[in-house]
């Protein structure tokens, strides 16, 4: 069973694109460690190699839709709710210097 340490928590926060305050780091470390202690009970189960994972409960093969052109949402309505935009694009902070 793994334990959640503050270092691991910091790493997971970084992977999650979250920045934790010191208080959050302490609380989340304790809480997630308790959750992991509970999920550790899955280790009790002797899982036969033949048991495959279930990703989806319904046996569906991925269907192909007909490749037919159809209307899309007007560009303005899609760009409308963006925090920052210009006429045709979403605008984000500069990522390339120069």
């Amino acid at each position, binding site marked *: 069973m793994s334990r959640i340490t503050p270092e691991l928590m910091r790493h997971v926060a970084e992977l999650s694109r979250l920045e934790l305050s010191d208080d959050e780091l302490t609380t989340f470390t304790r809480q997630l460690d308790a959750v992991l202690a509970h999920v550790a009970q899955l280790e009790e189960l002797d899982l036969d190699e033949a048991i495959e994972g279930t990703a989806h*409960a319904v046996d569906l093969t991925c269907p192909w839709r007909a490749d037919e052109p159809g209307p899309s949402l007007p560009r303005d309505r899609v760009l409308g709710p963006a925090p920052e935009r210009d006429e045709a694009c979403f605008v984000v902070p500069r990522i390339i210097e120069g």
Partner: protein
Amino acid sequence: MSLCFVDVTELARRIAGREISAEEVTRAHLEQARQLDGALRAFITLDAQGALEAARALDSRLARGEPVGPLCGVPVALKDNLVSAGLQTSAGSRILAGWIPPYDGTAVARIRAADAVILGKLNLDEFAMGSSTESSPLRGPCCNPWDTTRVPGGSSGGAAAAVAAGLCAGALGTDTGGSIRQPAALCGVSGLKPTYGRVSRYGVIAFASSLDQVGPLARSVRDCAALLEVIAGPDPRDSTSIPRGLAPGSLLAACARRDLAGLRVGVPREYFEQGGPEPDVERAVREAIEELRALGAEPREISLPHTPYAVATYYLIATAEASSNLARYDGVRFGLRAEGARSLDEMYTRTRQQGFGAEVKRRIMLGTFALSTGYYEAYYGRAQRVRTLIRRDFTRAFERCDVIATPTSPFPAFRQGEKQGDPLQMYLADIYTLSCNLAGLPGLSLPCGFSAGGLPLGLQLLGPPLAEETLLGVGAAYQAATDWHRRRPPLADGAAQEALP
């Protein structure tokens, strides 16, 4: 009889027959909301103007003799994680506050096309992650109409509270691990989680895509059938929607069932072991099972041996999927963007830090951990394999029974704040409802009594995939023989006084 407690099909029939106008019905519900929603906080957005306009437009069409849909004038409200064109859809989160979607999700479009009147958007735990509707940064905690110091359950707590208090005739919620059924039980209403794939997920704000499903909450099983009838069916915009639709009218027809002769009702032994439900809950559920026996059913003990592993399995799979689904909230295309970031990465991180509440952060991090290098096989991989065992338990059980009867929740509505700060205790509230989502089954919760303290209790009926007709039929037979579902919270009773002409 108050206009606010009339059955869905009865309301639609009277409005379509012009015995009463859609506008009057809408006004009565808006008035009920005006009186009670300050205390309940069931709505995040109450769209009085939009609802009245829709109702008047419908009355004009009726006056001209035009054909109308099956939910003609029925006041319906939507959980705020269902995307609705022109009406803020926030998922209860600061990160989406102010987002006015440019399109309708499929279930919402179908509700509109059936001529229901949409009153507004309902409170929920942020991103549907919770069992109490307390983590709602935009509106604040929603309260249970039976006792406002208690939670309504969650995450569709606003939906259950609004239906119970007569703020709407029916509601649409979503259920990823019990989020329709558990609040339905805690507020004394009926709620159905359909078979995975029965209702399109297009336009549902994704939490855990292999578990999420849209479904109805209403004051009777038959009302749930009337709503599901409208929203169910294949959708080319959701590749997981089941290609085979329902025969029109089949769900309402199923609700005519009164005799349960020969129905095999499985009672899973594991659900009453290991602490089990509180004594009041167990008593009410066992009495409900005896009532089913009196209607002709044959209860029998069954076993679902992997039940003790459901909570662990669910919280690894659901959070893993959530961590991936919620990656899209990055401050670029909609919702919040943090100010003052000097780089793109800093903008992402700060936006997410400011925009997500504590429970959402916890789940994103648990899911990220379960999927991360070095832990993937031990956590996510193992959980997926245990999911296979849980599903297999049900396949075997349904060889011996037609439906399974269990408590919906191990306890009645708990106090506000009681489980906050202890996520694991909150997760354990869903112990009886999670397996249904892991196995993709339909599940119905319906009122089956009250605790000694006067709080509603719920019976859960589970069926094999696509067995909605059976569940609704059994539920309707039970409701024809009992009146638990007709009880109203005292707070709601005196509020609206208008009588049906």
